[in-house]
């Protein structure tokens, strides 16, 4: 208290401004300061996150899929996910039955060099908004989970 009394108003104001600045930094970078965690297998959080990715991949595959999880990392309201979708019995997806069948045929016919699809591997970024997870970025390809 005596220290405070001896400080000038200017010094007090500067300290207050510095504290406010730090608090603003904390609020703006809350996700960066959040501890990174990997939700345990079977947890509700993990299920919620993976279900978002699963819907998109099932729409592409045109079959029910099981996700082989390479990575699920959560930082506050941001999640990074990397999965390889397979058939429910664990076998590889048949691209010829997927929405990408036409593109796949073009590759076989040599009309295109190759394709990178979410059916070979899918890396996503999700954000939580109003209590629900949303996929905001995704990339597909055989090697996306290696990065």
């Amino acid at each position, binding site marked *: 208290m005596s220290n405070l009394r001896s400080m000038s108003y200017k010094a007090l104001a500067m300290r207050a401004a510095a504290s406010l600045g730090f608090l603003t930094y904390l609020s703006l970078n809350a996700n960066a300061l959040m501890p990174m965690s990997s939700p345990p297998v079977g947890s509700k959080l993990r299920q919620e996150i993976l279900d*978002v990715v699963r819907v*998109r991949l099932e*729409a592409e595959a045109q079959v029910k899929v099981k996700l082989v999880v390479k990575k699920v990392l959560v930082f506050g309201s941001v999640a990074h996910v990397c999965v390889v979708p397979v058939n429910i019995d664990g076998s590889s997806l048949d691209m010829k039955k997927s929405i990408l069948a036409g593109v796949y045929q073009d590759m076989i016919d040599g009309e295109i060099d190759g394709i990178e699809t979410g059916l070979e591997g899918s890396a996503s970024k999700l954000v939580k908004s109003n209590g629900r997870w949303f996929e905001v970025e995704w990339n597909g390809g055989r090697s996306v989970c290696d990065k």
Partner: protein
Amino acid sequence: MLGFQTTLAADIKVVKPVAGSLVYKKLLNAIRPRIEYELKTTVRLTVKKMNMQGNWAYLEVLPLQIDGHAIDYSKTKFKDANLDLSDPNQAEMLINYALLKLVDGRWYEVRQESFQILANINWGEYFPVKYELFNYE
């Protein structure tokens, strides 16, 4: 599975959700977080097209700032696009296109495009939905 879905799609009519209805809001709220993430701001979505067929929906929306002004794309990842907005074909590229699927009572975005011309979006060729869902002329 594909055959089943194709049959199902053929039997279900394409409808337009009523503006302001619950499903209308749910569809917009299903794509809003992704758009706000990309544009780094909260947005108001102007609906250009919204069609629904069973558990599928197709949306074309133009994102605006909350106050109704145009988005400042110079602060987004699209800053290098350098669009000439007086050209209708380029202005069309500001529209967000989204295909959504309803699963367990929730709408999920399964395809989306922005900064793309409509002619390049051919989801109707791949997904088990009627072409009318996209209102192709």
